[in-house]
């Protein structure tokens, strides 16, 4: 295990460079920055024996920028020993400071989410930055479940955008049983119907669709 203060120093300087001009408003540039930051955090934390995984909205950005631009990086950090103490030490060495439930440096907000990671992960490499991220089916499942059971119409909209963006490149052998278990397979079917049509997708349409899905649920 590498535990070199110079490594953290170097990574802290790299983080400063990435954030020097702030986080971009343009989705692709923002996704590059998210990848760079995720790579820096991955290097710093794995050097101390921890395994960080990018989850949530930032994971969506890594798989398909332009659907959702996350305000923070959600990380699940796992490790064999005192994760919190080591994480705090590493984040502080990288120049991040604690603000409520987030860690902040300039425009960057990082939140560590309690584990374990709820789904399969993969190690990716984006522009030289290596890091671990949940596979694209995981945030898609979460958005479909959130749309059906919490009736968040923005989640329905993001799920449609993901279904369109990913097309046939989805691991249905994993996704279908997950959605069946969460009682949200019908949400996938209903929203898939909107991917191939030309009908406008609005809050009202998604709200009505969510209502229909839940009426069926209570009738059965």
């Amino acid at each position: 295990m590498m535990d070199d203060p110079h490594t953290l120093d170097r990574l802290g300087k790299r983080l400063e460079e990435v954030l020097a001009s702030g986080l971009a408003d343009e989705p692709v540039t923002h996704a590059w920055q998210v990848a760079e930051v995720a790579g820096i955090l991955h290097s710093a934390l794995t050097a101390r024996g921890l395994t960080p995984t990018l989850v949530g909205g930032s994971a969506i950005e890594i798989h398909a920028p332009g659907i959702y631009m996350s305000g923070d990086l959600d990380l699940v950090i796992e490790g064999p020993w005192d994760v919190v103490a080591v994480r705090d030490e590493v984040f502080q060495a990288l120049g991040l400071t604690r603000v409520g439930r987030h860690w902040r440096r300039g425009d960057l907000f990082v939140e560590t989410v309690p584990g374990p990671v709820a789904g399969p992960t993969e190690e990716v490499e984006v522009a030289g930055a290596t890091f671990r991220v949940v596979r694209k089916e995981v945030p898609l499942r979460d958005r479909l479940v959130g749309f059906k059971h919490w009736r968040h119409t923005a989640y329905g909209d993001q799920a449609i955008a993901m279904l369109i963006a990913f097309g046939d490149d989805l691991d249905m052998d994993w996704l279908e049983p997950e959605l069946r278990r969460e009682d949200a397979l019908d949400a996938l079917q209903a929203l898939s119907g909107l991917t191939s049509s030309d009908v406008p997708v609005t809050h009202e349409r998604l709200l009505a669709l969510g209502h229909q899905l839940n009426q069926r649920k209570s009738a059965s």
Partner: protein
Amino acid sequence: MTGQKRDPSQQWAIRLERIRRYRERSNPTGMTRPPRDPDEREFLRPVRKVRTQRRRPTIRLNPRGTQRPRPRSPSQLRPRGA
């Protein structure tokens, strides 16, 4: 489903184009999402402290109006000299 390193950015161009086409017919106005969505950054807004009057602790009084004596510990209950 874990294993080799992949570069998702190789798919970005084609996915962005598909999303762009979808955005032409989607209208996010009024769409709902969880309130804790971090990009709202609610947590950074200063919270105004509301002064509340602290309740004074209730002192139980015995019928004569004086403070009730503290219960004695078992060692105090033991007969003297025992």
